[in-house]
């Protein structure tokens, strides 16, 4: 279970502060597949980073009673100057996993081949996404945090993700921020719409999508 308890987040802007999230309360259970919807700047990434522990809320707290991946997104998580293998080695050490097992899975899942010997900064977003997914799947988290990046993968990657996350690991939780209505429809059973700093929870995906489209 993950509990977000009265989360507030404000960023410093010039002399004032801009409030992005204002008293957000959410609870996710194992097996929940949460779609995060909202306009650009509504706080989707902020909320995901907060759940992942990357940024600290201005006030409120997060209780994590299951292991939670780092936010899989367009940036962060990797050291650009290091190769794919070096990053894998680092992540294996930090999470206390055996590098050899991790490496085997990552090679097979990412299909990046020789590219894994190149610095991560030379990767395209699709390749980064492959590496991030490969690593976090090999580590086996209870909850996966995905910020947009699933959309940049090619057809082959989509198929693999579907098999690994939605079939093999259907009991895990998932928080997915995306603008792709189809993804939400296909994968999520709960939707959260972020607007004006508030989070509204909808059990009915179609209802949430209708509200999102009218924003």
């Amino acid at each position: 279970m993950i509990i977000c308890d009265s989360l507030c987040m404000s960023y410093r802007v010039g002399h004032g502060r801009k409030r992005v999230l204002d008293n957000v309360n959410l609870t996710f259970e194992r097996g929940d597949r949460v779609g995060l919807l909202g306009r650009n700047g509504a706080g989707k990434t902020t909320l995901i980073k907060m759940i992942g522990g990357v940024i600290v809320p201005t006030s409120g707290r997060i209780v994590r009673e299951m292991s939670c991946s780092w936010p899989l997104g367009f940036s962060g998580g990797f050291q650009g100057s290091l190769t794919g293998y070096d990053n894998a080695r680092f992540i294996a050490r930090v999470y206390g996993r055996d590098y050899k097992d991790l490496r085997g899975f990552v090679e097979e899942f990412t299909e990046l081949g020789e590219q894994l010997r190149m610095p991560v900064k030379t990767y395209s977003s699709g390749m980064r996404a492959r590496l991030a997914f490969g690593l976090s799947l090999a580590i086996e988290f209870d909850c996966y945090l995905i910020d947009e990046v699933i959309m940049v993968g090619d057809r082959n990657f989509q198929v693999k993700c579907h098999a690994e996350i939605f079939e093999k690991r259907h009991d895990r939780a998932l928080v997915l921020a995306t603008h792709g209505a189809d993804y939400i429809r296909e994968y999520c059973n709960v939707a959260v719409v972020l607007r004006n700093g508030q989070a509204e929870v909808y059990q009915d995906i179609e209802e949430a999508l209708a509200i999102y489209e009218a924003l």
Partner: protein
Amino acid sequence: MSGLREGWDSQSRVVKALMLRELTTRFGRENIGFLWMMVEPLLFAVLVGIMWTYLKGPDEHGVGIIAFVASGYIPLTFLRHSFTRCVSVFLVNGSLLYHRQVKVTDFILVRVLIEFIGGTMAWLFIAFALGILGYIPVPAYPGMMVAGWLLYGLVILSVCFVIAPLSEVSEVIEKILPVSTYIAIPVSGVFTMASWAPPGVREYLLMSPMVNAMEMIRYGLFGDYIKPYYNIWNPILVSVIFMTIGLVLCRRVRRDLVVE
């Protein structure tokens, strides 16, 4: 208790991973970066030693000048490198904060630890290289020397805990750091000994934790050829104070840190 144990395991894993990562990014796989860390103090000790030999004679207050320069320069390099490498360290390593168990304090600890290991290796390297030629004596009290070096390391680490978060808040720190380390040389004990100073001045010199630690290092190296002045509580107390302030600052700065 088990929570504490888990935390300790997780932190030691992180520190180890960060150390290995830092070594690969900094020194790469092919070049001889780590060797430079040892060769640089050696060159300095030899060249400045030769210069001083011509200017002042081969001995300084009864001890060999090359050994004296070497024993002062290694801690000075350690101090300077640690301070500069701590500036903006949170920002530079920001992408690693995506992994929740990685803490900002780990970044500081790892950078200082690497400099400390480099400095220790420089000691050993110089001791062998110049020891064979008879320029560096066998340490009279090795335990004292090690204790002094460890205390010196502790002081630098605690100061880095303050520099790192402050540099994140204001870039003034980065600008004034080189000049302040230069101005601090007289109170660092690097090229002087407390016994050379008149008693009135000595009193003030001994307020500096670096001077106290340097006196211990030199006493351990040269033994009773020199008259040391030190109080081990001074560096310990100063470190505890800086560490406490630093940890509070780190916590504050982490809250507002914008991680891309």
